[in-house]
């Protein structure tokens, strides 16, 4: 029996002027699973996430969320769909002008119309969930370390208990221990919520920890996908080079041709 799909991309193209970033992406994300997209810088990973969220409009192709083509949605319908999503950004993207608790509670107050007092209680609970005390809630984001900012970003991503969570380079810029702490938190939080997740990363340790399935994006196309156990025997030279971090291989050869 085939799995129920939460997100499905069919032949998605996106370019910026003459530069073609996505060149016919096809991807299935089954409900309740964690899919990780790996690939080098500039291969279109972030653009793909932004197309799914509607921040960017694809030039061609269809994007289905719960079986509905979101590329054809009106503004109101898109807003309804967005309420299913949470996202942890690469740089955390916390709002500088708001205290930490209000960052975490933002989706509850603005998106769901919850009272500030009730939202603050939930925000404090979510901060506790990611290992931060209530006193942190009163600080400004600028007063936090990189690791703490990521944890606040994670608390914000899970605060509305979304059905789908995107993680954009969740461990970039962190030391290996803090990166592992974030990976553990992601796995625990996703397990608690039963959410479907789509992550993009360069960090193979992170990918192996949080993924059920892995796909590799190269030159705007998915060139390999499989389970995380299969990736070490993919038989794909590009994947092998990437996961072992070798300077030599087909990816370097392509670069030298430029």
């Amino acid at each position: 029996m085939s799995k129920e799909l939460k997100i499905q991309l069919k032949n998605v193209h996106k370019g910026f002027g003459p530069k073609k970033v996505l060149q016919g992406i096809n991807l299935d994300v089954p409900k309740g699973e964690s899919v990780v997209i790996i690939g080098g810088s500039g291969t279109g990973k972030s653009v793909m996430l932004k197309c799914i969220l509607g921040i960017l409009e694809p030039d061609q192709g269809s994007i289905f969320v719960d079986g509905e083509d979101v590329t054809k949605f009106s503004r109101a319908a898109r807003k309804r769909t967005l309420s299913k999503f949470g996202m942890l950004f690469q740089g955390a993207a916390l709002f500088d002008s708001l205290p930490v608790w209000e960052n975490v509670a933002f989706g509850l107050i603005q998106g769901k119309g919850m009272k500030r007092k009730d939202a603050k209680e939930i925000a404090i609970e979510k901060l506790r969930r990611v290992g931060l005390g209530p006193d942190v809630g009163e600080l400004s984001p600028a007063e936090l370390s990189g690791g703490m900012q990521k944890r606040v970003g994670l608390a914000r991503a899970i605060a509305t208990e979304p059905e789908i969570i995107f993680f954009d380079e969740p461990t970039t810029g962190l030391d290996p221990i803090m990166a592992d702490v974030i990976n553990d938190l992601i796995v625990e939080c996703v397990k608690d919520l039963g959410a479907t997740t789509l992550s993009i990363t360069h960090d193979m340790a992170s990918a192996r920890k949080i993924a059920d399935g892995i796909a590799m994006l190269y030159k705007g196309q998915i060139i390999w996908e499989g389970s995380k156990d299969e990736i070490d025997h993919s038989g794909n030279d590009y994947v092998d080079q990437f996961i072992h971090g070798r300077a030599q291989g087909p990816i370097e050869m392509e670069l030298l041709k430029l």
Partner: protein
Amino acid sequence: MRNPLAVIGQVVLASLAEIGSLSRFSAAAISHIVRPPIYWRLVLNHMWLIGYNSLPVVGLTALFTGAALAQQIYVGGSRFNAESVVPGVVVIAIVRELGPVLGGLMVAGRVSSAMAAELGTMRVTEQIDALVTLSTDPFKYLIAPRLLAAVITLPILVLVANIIGVLGGYMIGTGRLGLNEGTYLQVTVDFLERADVISSLVKASVFGFIIALMGSYHGYYSRGGAQGVGKATTNAVVSAFIAILLANLIITVIVFGGRGA
């Protein structure tokens, strides 16, 4: 060497594209101002930032300008034995032109740049994308409150600037030039017409819109990290200055173009 006609064509096309983009941005922003919900908490916060924080610089500009104007008109008027026109010309010049224009330019320098820098930083650090993922329309949350606050606040600021400007003229006129205090105030009141005040406040409101629009537009679409934010800030101030001076000319011609006085 490139064909000069091609270069001119590219510049014209780029300018038209920019005007089109700015028009679309303005239309979207206005549509969010007239459609509820309006974030009044944010509007009040921006009114405070724009109005209260600009008050010292706008007040000082008006005070010094009014005073210098009185001195200049006195010297010029004395050539025709017309020193008594000082209060009338000062109030007309301040209320019709210098109050709103200089006030607008000073606020543009402070506020357009600050808005462009803040929104530009939010853009390059993905905070604007984060708003979208939190089911919040960036136009509704970021742009509309700034525009509304500026449109409401600028007339109040300019009203205060007009009063301070006239006071500057009064201080020099009565304290240094020997004009009679009672006569100065009487002539000021007699010369001032309702249309002068209304046009001053209308100009201020339009300038407020321009200041917030340019700051928001250039910040919202900034690209390329710190350098992009810096460029957006400069563009916001320069375009706000030019747009304010152009709008001032248009409003002046419309309001006073058909009048003899």
